[in-house]
């Protein structure tokens, strides 16, 4: 089974978000980069399926110089190769991004049986790239999936809704967008990291349509410290906590 996983590079936000002076982007000068848990789970699922059914795992990432770092991390847990769609930024209009990713998938030699994405990107939460890609490629799609098994060319997908799970069956080739909690992503091993250095990344240039959503500005709501009241430590703190619990009515 040949699987393709779409991964996006995000700044690792710490405890506060700093914006650039023009307020149009996050100031990433002092930040590292990472993936989203949704996409980490997607890669882990792909690697598990490869282990179970055989086949290959291809990563696709669209973004500027630097995305190689996240690609190599995922090579280390078992992905085989990657397609890097070069673009100026990762902040791409979702319509244009889905089209460029679709173009790259169509142009690739591999006819992927399964394409996995995150249910929503960590930064933009557009929640649409997977569905757009499915239409672009003429394939069925299931979204926001937290459980998946594949047998006889059919993906059985579960979506968590409140206390229940909805089950969808999707015939391959298909697109599935997944959520954190689908599995527990493994950590890369040392041999995995060594192999990762040699795995191939094919670079392609994306053809980007003009965006129909124009960013006007970002604001990070100023979080004024609530000025936490210090309740001390030890027995004294435990007594104070019980008083607070009584005061707000959660302990009678």
């Amino acid at each position, binding site marked *: 089974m040949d699987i393709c996983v779409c991964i996006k590079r995000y700044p690792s936000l*710490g*405890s506060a*978000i700093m914006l650039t002076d023009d307020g149009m982007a*996050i100031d990433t000068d002092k930040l590292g980069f990472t993936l*989203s*848990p949704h996409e980490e789970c997607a890669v882990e699922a792909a690697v598990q399926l490869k282990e179970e059914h055989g086949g290959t795992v291809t990563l696709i990432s669209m973004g500027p110089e630097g995305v190689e770092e996240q690609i190599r991390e995922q090579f280390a847990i078992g992905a085989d190769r990657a397609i890097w769609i070069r673009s100026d930024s990762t902040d791409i*209009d*979702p*319509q244009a991004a889905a089209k460029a990713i679709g173009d790259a998938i169509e142009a690739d030699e591999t006819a992927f049986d399964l394409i996995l994405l995150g*249910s*929503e990107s*960590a*930064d*933009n*939460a*557009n*929640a*649409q790239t997977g*569905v*757009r890609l499915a239409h672009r490629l003429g394939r069925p799609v*299931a*979204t926001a999936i*937290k459980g998946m098994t594949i047998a006889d060319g059919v993906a059985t997908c*579960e979506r*968590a*809704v409140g*206390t*229940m799970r*909805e*089950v*969808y069956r999707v015939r391959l080739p298909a697109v599935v967008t997944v959520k*954190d*909690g689908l599995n*527990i*992503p493994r950590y890369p091993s040392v041999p995995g990291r060594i192999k990762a250095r040699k795995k191939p990344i094919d670079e392609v240039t994306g053809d980007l349509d003009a965006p*129909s*959503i*124009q960013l*006007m500005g*970002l*604001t*990070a*709501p100023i979080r004024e*410290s*609530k000025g*936490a*009241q*210090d*309740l001390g430590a*030890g027995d004294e*703190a*435990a*007594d104070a*906590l*019980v008083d*607070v*619990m009584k005061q*707000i009515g*959660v*302990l009678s």
Partner: protein
Amino acid sequence: MILVYADHDRGELDPLALQVVSAARGLDADVHALIVGPNAEKCVDDLASAGVRTVHHGTNAAIDDYTPRANANAVITVMDRLEPRAVLAAGTPRGSEVLAHVASIKDLPLVTECSEIALTGSGTAEVTRARWGGNLLERSEVSADVLLATVQAHAFAVSEDAGDAQVEAFEVPVTDADLEVSIVERTGAAETGVGLAEAKVVISGGRGMDGPEAFGMLEELADILGGAVGCSRVVTAAGWRPHAEQVGQTGTKVAPDLYIAFGISGATQHIAGCKSAKTLIAVNTDGQAPIMTHADYAVVDNLHTLLPVLIEKARAAQGA
């Protein structure tokens, strides 16, 4: 005219649909709603009480449960006939999914998680939407003849406007391909942590718990307070607790009266899930941890020595 896609599960209206109606009424007094499938007629009265005067009910003998692409076809049928200025839905998995199908088929932009929407001209709109789990707000201009948008939960209060709604039934056009993906079965959740989103008290643990064992103490405390146990992603990624208990941007969003964070540093992605708590208490050995800026009360101490004492005192207070 504004069209609201109102989702329901076997006849039970998604309560967020009424918030979407309220968002729509802020744009235009003429709000229509669309419901699809069998049993959907049960939703008509609720929609009417929120100010909807026309409800379009799409059915087809082949649709017996939620079918994303058929629902998208229903939206498109009404869109093509009545040319609404905007189509809105709740920012739920289903609402986003149905509008994403509509957007793909009609090649239109879709803006998600909007907390403010303004129609600024013919074919333009301005929205404010949440990024990074609500830690960042984006203002954007959208160019489209029909604005497709999902509405952030709890950004709009339900407004009442009693009256009747007229129901217009229509047949949803479907092909076999449209029916391919639909709910085939429902199962009970195979995970614990159910009720976290509604819990009045959430007792959460992070990396500072040092392993799964100490969570027994959080369960005890949660039991005494009638609450639920939560955790950070470090905890679920290590397999100490099930993902259903994870609070945050990629976990559950909670809004309890009391949230206690034991050994959690307060990364933005964790705060995204608990910032609506009425009272937040942080227990952390590090008095400078970022969680402290979100806390109403702070205890700078080792959670492992504090918890046994706290449990004993809370139990005694409850018994008294």
